[in-house]
């Protein structure tokens, strides 16, 4: 039994390495707009993976991650345009800023009990949005452009954005994978299933929740900063819009909770749908919404999870199963 699991982890590892290799050489094969799409996909994927940690493992369903996406974006503008910090260095820095801010914010967010937490995080994101929209120094309601990026020639800027994105992707996936396979990850799963039971086994529920919340803010902050180094123009609606949560939710509905590859599948499908249907405007969104509703009614743990369970696919094994003891043991 154990040999099989190790081999499967090996497969996941090889696949991951192959994908990273392909992505690494992509700039020489495709044009700039395709690269931008990949970067955006990476931003969404990082967001979805950290949301997965929050909701799938810790039971904290947030509809307000856009608070930290926007914070990351505006921190980028502030640091890069005013502070003169290199924009690409800003990506991890903005993530850290978002993480730091999330600590006091969590004191408020965690006051929302149970299902109220979702809308509570949304309220908090709206507070961020309105505060920024009311601050003319940050461009007010109409936003502003990111000028520090103009220092870079276009081609270099686009490749740099891409490399930073790749680095972020590898870092995020690797760390989440390691966490989930560790004892800490087991604690997270326990917490989702029953806080009381988890606490009675010595898991510090409050600190774990805080850690996951901060980690999600870190990821969202970096994703936000990355997105706006590419986008060059930021506004409160684009930065703090609930569309970020809508995209994450769709990705998770398709990809499922509790696997590492689920959000990858979800992101790919989301972008594929968007790119092929976007001209249809509202119909594309209606379709997304219907898919989300139908999927959740039929497969509450996500479409990919449902498929994977039927076909017994485990690309990145992070689940634990109770194995029957071998007769020979």
């Amino acid at each position, binding site marked *: 039994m154990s040999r099989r699991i190790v081999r499967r982890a090996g497969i996941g590892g090889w696949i991951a390495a192959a994908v990273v290799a392909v992505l690494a050489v992509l700039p020489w094969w495709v044009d700039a707009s395709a690269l931008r799409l990949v970067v955006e996909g990476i931003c969404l994927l990082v967001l979805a993976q950290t949301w997965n940690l929050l909701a799938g493992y810790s039971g904290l369903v947030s509809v307000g991650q856009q608070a930290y996406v926007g914070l990351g974006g505006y921190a980028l503008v502030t640091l890069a345009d005013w502070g003169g910090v290199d924009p690409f260095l800003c990506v991890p820095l903005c993530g850290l800023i978002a993480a730091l801010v999330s600590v006091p914010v969590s004191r*408020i967010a965690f006051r929302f009990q149970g299902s109220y937490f*979702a809308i509570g995080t949304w309220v908090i994101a709206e507070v961020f949005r309105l505060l920024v929209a009311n601050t003319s120094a940050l461009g007010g309601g109409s936003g502003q452009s990111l000028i520090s990026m103009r220092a870079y020639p276009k081609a270099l800027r686009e490749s740099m954005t891409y490399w930073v994105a790749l680095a972020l992707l590898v870092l995020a996936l690797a760390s989440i994978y390691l966490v989930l396979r560790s004892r800490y990850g087991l604690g997270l799963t326990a917490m989702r299933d029953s806080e009381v039971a988890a606490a009675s086994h010595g898991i510090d529920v409050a600190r774990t929740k805080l850690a996951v919340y901060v980690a999600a803010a870190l990821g969202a902050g970096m994703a936000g900063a990355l997105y706006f180094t590419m986008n060059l123009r930021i506004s409160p609606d684009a930065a703090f819009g609930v569309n970020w949560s809508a995209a994450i939710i769709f990705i998770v509905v398709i990809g499922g909770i509790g696997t590492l590859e689920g959000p990858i599948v979800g992101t790919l499908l989301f972008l594929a749908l968007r790119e092929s249907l976007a001209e249809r405007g*509202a119909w594309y969104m*209606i379709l997304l*919404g219907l898919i989300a*509703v139908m999927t959740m009614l039929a497969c509450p743990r996500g479409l990919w999870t449902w498929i994977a369970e039927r076909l017994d696919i485990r690309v990145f094994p992070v689940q634990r199963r109770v194995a029957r003891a071998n007769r020979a043991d």
Partner: protein
Amino acid sequence: MPTSASELVGWADTLLQGVLLGGLYALFAMGLSLAFGVMRLVNIAHGDLIVLASFAAIALGLGTGWGPLAAFLVIVPAMAALGYALQRLMLNRTLGGDALPPLLVTFGLSIVVQNGLLEAFSADPRGLGAGGLETASIRLTSGIAVGWLPLIVFAVAAAITLGLERTFGRTRYGRAFRAASDDPVTAELMGMSHRHVYALAMAVSLAIVAAAGIFLAMRTTVAPSDGPGYLLYAFEAVIIGGMGSFWGTWAGGIILGVVQGVGFRLDPGWGILAGHLACLAVLLIRPRGLFPRTRG
């Protein structure tokens, strides 16, 4: 300190209009409070369903030429039926386990309703003509006028709150709502089908939503994307007012209306923000809300 009598009057007017606006917010919140209370359901599509009712009323008016009264007679029962079907066919299946499925299903529903309205009506804001009622007012003093419509909305909100309190506290169905909320399994043993009870609760919730939407369209213009904003107001009213009490929710709506009015007067960009901040402040100071229901 107000520096002149007219400023004082101005503030009094702001407060009064805020209270009246709060009546509308109380209507927004009442249906949400009911769904929370009975089914522990967080309906993310709540605001969008209010807007749906608004547009249904507008379409009805455009199509038939009938006035708002007809809208009430047609749309309130229609949305009650929609609520029953929605709960019975869709939402009941998501309840009772993980918190995730009901949130995701209602989020998907929200997207479908918003964009469906966008397709059907375009993004332009529309209003519902009320044959002059929108502007009719009573002049109290030279600086303060009270609109008839806001007054009616306020009164209807209070009446509905009273009705809900009475129903929950004294009737057979009210006991069924509370029992099914406490312990759906044991409620089944008493002969209460919790599927039916939950669906009834949703029917009442959406009936109130319908009334709120129709009044909204009379008071102001409505756009398809307005839904989420109203969900947040309803939610904030429930949080401010307190858990488990309809009068608490009503008070929460009033307070929210006043806070928004005051914030708006101080700086137009701060109106809605003030409401959000008030909600967070109440949560920090009194996590159970200002007027939670205490037992016994």
